[in-house]
């Protein structure tokens, strides 16, 4: 039983270290890119790097929440041997970050409590909290909740406003086809423009009148011409009529 648990712990620690090293590598390459290739680094590739990091952190989170993973919190680490000498193996394991396992650094690395300063601050805060009466505390909680919700609303609303803004801009016409037609016909043949100035004898809006006018007399002539034959006919008739008596 205990052996199985131990195996499980070992396996999960191994997978955890491998995942952490993946994050480490990704971070290193990203920092390297930021420092050396910032001139040609495109925003999409920065986003890609962020996505990679967030994916890896997510998978670590999943691993820690997994049921099969034993609770690391319940594991106890006890420093068995402290030495002021340099430990090459340790240095290699920690990539030269922790060269000695001494009295000086062990309390820092194996600390499970918050930092002393943080501890001090926490103490102050809890003292202050104890000083305030429950009613006042309730009021403050309500005020904070109110503030948070209004802030959330403000953060969410701009998106809506922005969206509605852009759709409004799309819907708002910046041109009017009827105006296009009006302007085109105005410059093409003077529609809607004040036509004609005094020296111009042709009344407005009758571009076709010139030919009509000149056509007028010809029409008249035609009608006269039409009448003429009839009068000739009657003349002939009357002539023939007047001639009949002679023939008779």
């Amino acid at each position, binding site marked *: 039983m205990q052996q199985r648990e131990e195996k499980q712990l070992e396996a999960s620690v191994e997978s955890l270290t491998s995942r952490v090293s993946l994050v480490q590598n990704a971070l290193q390459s990203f920092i390297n890119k930021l420092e050396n290739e910032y001139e040609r680094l495109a925003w999409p590739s920065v986003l890609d790097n962020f996505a990679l990091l967030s994916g890896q952190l997510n998978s670590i989170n999943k691993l820690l929440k997994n049921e099969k993973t034993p609770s690391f919190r319940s594991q106890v680490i006890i420093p068995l041997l402290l030495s002021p000498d340099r430990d090459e193996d340790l240095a290699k394991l920690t990539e030269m970050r922790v060269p000695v396992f001494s009295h000086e650094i062990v309390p820092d690395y194996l600390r499970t409590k918050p930092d002393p300063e943080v501890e001090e601050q926490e103490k102050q805060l809890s003292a202050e909290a104890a000083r305030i009466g429950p009613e006042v505390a309730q009021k403050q909680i309500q005020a904070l909740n109110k503030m948070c919700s209004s802030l959330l609303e403000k953060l969410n609303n701009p998106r809506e406003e922005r969206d509605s803004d852009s759709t409004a801009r799309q819907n708002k016409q910046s*041109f009017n086809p009827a105006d296009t037609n009006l302007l085109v016909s105005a410059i093409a043949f003077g529609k809607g*423009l004040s036509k004609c100035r005094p020296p111009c004898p042709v009344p407005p809006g009758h571009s076709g009148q010139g030919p009509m006018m000149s056509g007028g007399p010809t029409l008249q002539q035609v009608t006269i011409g039409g009448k003429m034959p009839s009068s000739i006919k009657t003349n002939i008739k009357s002539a023939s009529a007047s001639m009949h008596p002679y023939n008779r």
Partner: protein
Amino acid sequence: MEAPPVTVMPVTGGTINMMEYLLQGSVLDQGLESLLHRLRGLCDNLEPETFKDHELVYFLKGQQGSPFILRARRSLSHPNAPWHVRYLGQPELGDKSRHALVRNCVDVSASHSLPEFLNEMGFRMDHEFVTSGRIFRKGAMKIVVGSVSRMLVPGNTENVEQISLSSLIELSILAPAGQDTVSEDMRSFAEQLRPLIHLDKVDPAKQRH
């Protein structure tokens, strides 16, 4: 609003076979600033030329048919510049494969006695208007954005009234006949101005009545 009163294309040795490829549109006054901003970004000249022109349209009426039309233009901002006479042929809409309206176009510079000369020839002024705005250029393309105003008192270019709340936009290229490929450039340029404005082939004959 065809062109400023400067010789755009001098007629040399009977080169009158120039065609004007034209797309027209309009922009409401509230959209004008954003359009100008976009044009500044798209065009060659960062600061567009401004113009204020007076155009007089002369008709020569024959015995029948439609009158012969000449357009005389003078710059109000440069009174000493030569006048400009323009003949425009019948616009051809063409089919869908041609993206711009095409019309024959002859541009000539003229002296300041042009109105008297035209009158002596029998031309009579039919209408006149004042147009002012800006000219952008991109390669061979010319983009004219301007307002059209009617003249309240004939002959008085000071007393004018804008006929519409929109400005007229004309995108044009002068090219020898048959070079329909230029209309492709115009179409793609017009696409870049969407949805701010919509430049299209506008057949004036359809709006006549």
